[in-house]
């Protein structure tokens, strides 16, 4: 048996479920988006579902809205996570141990985080109540309608809350290996705290930040649970649109749901490739010691 065959055989316990579940799922989705392998015969043409979507302005509105929510929440989570991780890393040892409470939101399910945001930020929530009790607003309905303002702020808050500890975890892993003498050296050379952070620390954290951003962005772009609790009907997130098309319409519209999923998958792949290329170009020549 050749070494390649032997390697494939050894990998098969992992590779087979992956092929069956992931690749099979993608294959079935793509097929159904073309009206093939559907539970009932699809009366339309092979690209009808795509034509339907591409001529529907609400699809583009949802696409752009989903992109916006994902980009803002991922960028916020990575930025806040990086700054907090750096602060914690600089704390004296004992305090840094206490600061590990930041990991708690990691174990909360997304849906729980959505409810946390709802409980705090809704017009009948804790913040509205506190503002009312403090006399800042006359009635709770005067509290700004943060969650349903049409900008997806509720979802952004939830994704940021959930994504920040994840970004911190990635950045912390880099900081553990970061040589603190670089900061001492930069300080001796007369650099301010800001210059040290941006010129010396940040370039070393960039790989973790990029990875964190890609993961959080793609998750927020396609996830369902938080939008289900916190999204608005117009514009809606793409995941909600898929859910509605799949479960709340007749079977004839399922290829449209599958077409959205296919477009989202294609976009995710393109995004990773393009983002990686840009980052590689920006960091061209920069190597670690």
């Amino acid at each position, binding site marked *: 048996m050749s070494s390649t065959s032997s390697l494939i055989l050894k990998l098969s316990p992992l590779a087979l479920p992956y092929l069956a579940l992931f690749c099979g799922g993608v294959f079935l989705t793509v097929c159904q988006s073309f009206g093939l392998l559907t539970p009932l015969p699809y009366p339309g043409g092979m690209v009808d579902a795509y034509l339907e979507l591409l001529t529907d302005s609400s699809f583009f509105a949802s696409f752009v809205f989903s992109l916006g929510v994902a980009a803002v929440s991922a960028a916020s989570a990575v930025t806040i996570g990086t700054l907090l991780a750096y602060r914690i890393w600089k704390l004296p040892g004992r305090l840094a141990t206490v600061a590990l409470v930041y990991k708690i939101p990691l174990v909360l399910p997304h849906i729980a985080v959505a409810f946390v945001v709802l409980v705090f930020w809704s017009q009948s929530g804790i913040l509205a109540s506190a503002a009312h009790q403090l006399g800042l607003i006359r009635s709770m309905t005067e509290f700004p309608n943060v969650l349903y303002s049409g900008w997806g702020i509720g979802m952004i808050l939830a994704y940021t809350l959930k994504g920040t500890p994840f970004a911190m975890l990635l950045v912390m892993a880099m900081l553990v290996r970061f040589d603190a003498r670089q900061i001492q050296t930069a300080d*001796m050379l007369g650099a301010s705290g800001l*210059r040290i952070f941006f010129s010396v620390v940040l370039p*070393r954290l960039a790989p973790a930040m990029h990875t964190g951003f890609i993961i959080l962005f793609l998750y927020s772009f396609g996830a369902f649970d938080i939008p289900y609790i916190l999204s608005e009907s117009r514009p809606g997130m793409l995941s909600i649109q898929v859910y509605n098309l799949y479960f709340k319409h007749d079977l004839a519209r399922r290829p449209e749901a599958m077409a959205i999923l296919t477009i989202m998958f294609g976009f995710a792949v393109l995004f990773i490739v393009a983002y990686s290329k840009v980052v590689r170009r920006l960091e061209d020549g920069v*190597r670690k*010691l």
Partner: protein
Amino acid sequence: MDLSVCKITKRFKNRTVLADISFDVGPRELVSIVGPSGVGKTTLLKIIAQLDRPDAGVVNFSHPPTKKHPVIIVFQDYVLFPAMTVRGNIGFGLRARKMGKQQIGFQVDRMLDYFQLANMGEHYPSQLSAGQKQRVAIARAMIVNPAVLLLDEPFANLDRNLKMETARFIRQTQQAFGIPTISVTHDLEEAFAMSDRIGVLLDGRLRQFDTPKQVYFNSASPNVARFLGPVNTIPEDVFARFQVNGYNGGRNSSGVILARPENLIMTADEEGPGRIVEKTFAGHYSAYTIDLQGTAYTAYSQDDRFMPGQRVVLTLKPY
């Protein structure tokens, strides 16, 4: 600018790492503190650089260091900024001072030329050899005109054949820039070659602080002498055998003379009191072990004609 280190003591938990360390460094002077690994040399540097605090004692500067004229350590592994080019690393201190781009470029070019890095400006640290990294680190420090330059084990990561060349370069650079410099190292030859004065740190105490020649040939104690290299202990009752009259070298409080092997001169004499028992080739000299009244003495000689079994007279040469 000069500085004096006064009675510095540092403890880690219950262990005293540095005890009562005092010495001073004059303007334009290069001082080396030598000692075995783990004796607290780097801790001493960090205290001088104010990166660590002593439990007792103080470091006094004739002109206290400022953000503009700081004390700068060049660490053992240089700690270059990996995401910056050589040019970026060297110019970092000037950018921190918000100097104009053109002026930074001019000064960095000068440094690149002086440190023989002119064609390396756009390289990243990972593309440099250890010697080049060290030059970048020293250039990065020198460009901001530091009050004091501290070198932590400057020869530790260099190939053997590069060490002496680097020592000369450091000496030449230090003289050219006129910056008081303290180096801690366990590379003795290089420390001797480049330093105005040397301190010997043993067991957390500064056992001797003097010129290299004085420290080497007139060591304050047998321990200091042995740390600096092979040494013969000549007891008082055999002084006559070594014709020590007029010898101005190390004679310690117990009356014995500490004599370096290179200070023992062998002369062939069939009636001589010493007998060569071993000869070892050591490159540019030969090491001889001579038995004299039951005690073994070591002598170095470039004369290769002596043979084991041969009788010799040993004479102590003043240094």
